[in-house]
């Protein structure tokens, strides 16, 4: 496809369950970001992948959160033992830029996660 895609678009889960969120970046984009946006809040950085380099995980809020990017393309964000405060929209973005500070990021439609 032409843009960033994410799946599922909506996910409702019970507290304590694990969830996986998927992101397909724009083909050829080397950089991939995950963000979280809680209701009424700005975007919160979670993790950054650039090519084959080690990811910047400095934004992950706890060790229940992890992400991987296989083959430099598709990425999966995993949240283990979900809590109600994990409820948010999780946005993925990709960028063709090699340098982070000059990025223009293209966002996917997001996954709305609701933890009951």
């Amino acid at each position, binding site marked *: 496809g032409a843009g960033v895609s994410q799946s599922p678009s909506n996910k409702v889960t019970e507290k304590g369950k694990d969830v996986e969120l998927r992101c397909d970046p724009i083909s050829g984009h080397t950089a991939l*970001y995950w*963000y979280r946006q809680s209701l*009424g*809040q*700005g*975007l*919160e*950085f979670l993790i*950054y992948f650039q090519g084959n380099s080690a990811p*910047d995980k*400095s*934004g992950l809020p706890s060790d229940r959160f992890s992400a991987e990017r296989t083959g430099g393309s598709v990425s999966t964000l995993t949240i283990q033992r979900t809590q109600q405060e994990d409820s948010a*929209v999780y*946005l993925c973005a990709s960028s063709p830029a090699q340098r*982070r*500070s*000059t*990025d*223009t*990021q*293209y*966002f*996917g*439609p*997001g996954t*709305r996660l609701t933890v009951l």
Partner: protein
Amino acid sequence: EDKVVQSPLSLVVHEGDTVTLNCSYEVTNFRSLLWYKQEKKAPTFLFMLTSSGIEKKSGRLSSILDKKELFSILNITATQTGDSAVYLCAVPNNNDMRFGAGTRLTVKP
């Protein structure tokens, strides 16, 4: 601490009005400022600004950056109901893209 502050947090206008959204920032090693429009879930890129005083325009939207006073404004003229959205300002720093909380614009018919 790096931060991006947007104002107002929300704004309600009628079709045809002109609005100005503000974004101030404090970021080390500033390189660029970006504006996004967010409807429903995904932010859509609007502008990237890197130089002071140079206005960027796209239709009824325009934006300008002041690197001395550390702020940017986004103007929308002749607003339409389709302009209703959250407008996000973002500034990359050394480690990530720092976003403001956004301005929620509602344009009433």
